[in-house]
């Protein structure tokens, strides 16, 4: 496993499993809990990881980002969030989009990994997008486990 692509696929797979394991420990009440009724819920984070994985998979497959502007992206995201409005639905979405992302990453030609693609926020290499998905899931795995610690009171 000594190529950048193989490393990315393996890390994404491992991190998505760890994130799912953390999310599956949450009760439905913990999924919508937020400190002092402010801050971010675990449900919102699980959904976001699913949405980002899905978007990155689509970008790798089409060599084009699925939204051409930030308002278009926000509109798509709000619609998807409305469709995945329970912890159960968001977990299924994260599982599906993670499998979609492994497949897209695995099928992506290594030689094109460092080419750039235009996103509404600027130019990114495909490699950077893959490790963005990895970073995002590791970050939210940390936050969801922290929420579990806070709810253990």
């Amino acid at each position: 496993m000594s190529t950048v692509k193989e490393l990315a696929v393996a890390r994404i797979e491992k991190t998505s499993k760890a994130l799912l394991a953390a999310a599956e420990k949450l009760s439905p009440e913990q999924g919508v809990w937020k400190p002092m009724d402010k801050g971010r819920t675990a449900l919102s984070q699980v959904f976001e990881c699913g949405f980002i994985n899905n978007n990155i998979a689509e970008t790798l497959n089409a060599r084009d980002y699925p939204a051409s502007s930030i308002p278009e992206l926000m509109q798509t995201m709000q619609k998807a969030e409305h469709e995945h409005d329970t912890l159960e639905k968001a977990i299924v979405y994260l599982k599906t989009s993670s499998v979609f992302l492994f497949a897209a990453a695995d099928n992506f030609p290594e030689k094109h990994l460092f080419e750039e693609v235009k996103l509404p926020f600027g130019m990114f290499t495909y490699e950077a997008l893959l490790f963005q998905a990895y970073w995002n899931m590791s970050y939210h795995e940390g936050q969801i486990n922290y929420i579990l610690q806070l709810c253990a009171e």
Partner: protein
Amino acid sequence: MTTVLELVAHLVRTSSDDLAEIANKSGSANFNFKANEKARTIHSQLTECCVINQWTSQVLNDRKMSDMNMEQATAFFQKAEDDYDTLEKANAFLASATARLIAAIHDFPVEKLDDTLTMPWGETRTFLTLATLAVWNMNYHQGQINYIHLYLAAEAA
């Protein structure tokens, strides 16, 4: 074309910089804040990242797993937490441990990357996936430390 070792070194650098930025967000005031008895402090998490970076650099440099068992590792971590008991000291520790780890990654022979070792907690990893453990760990604790800031902001509102 970036090599896999250059990429991992780059990920260590950016994860460490992002972690330091988040850890310093509210200064020293909340370094030892605990939302409840089970929740970890910024101090504990930042020290853990430093210890993991330093330990990983040692394993990469030695080309073999350290002899430290989990009990010794826990004692080592506890001593580090006592020694690096201010934000300033922990920042300096993170800077030095990250620099050591990046140097160890750059010096590591590519032909040994897929050799395997057994972690003190029983998991089998290659040297390459061991090197990425530090990246995952820093990203994970960046998320937790940022959630402490969110918690504190909610409490203050």
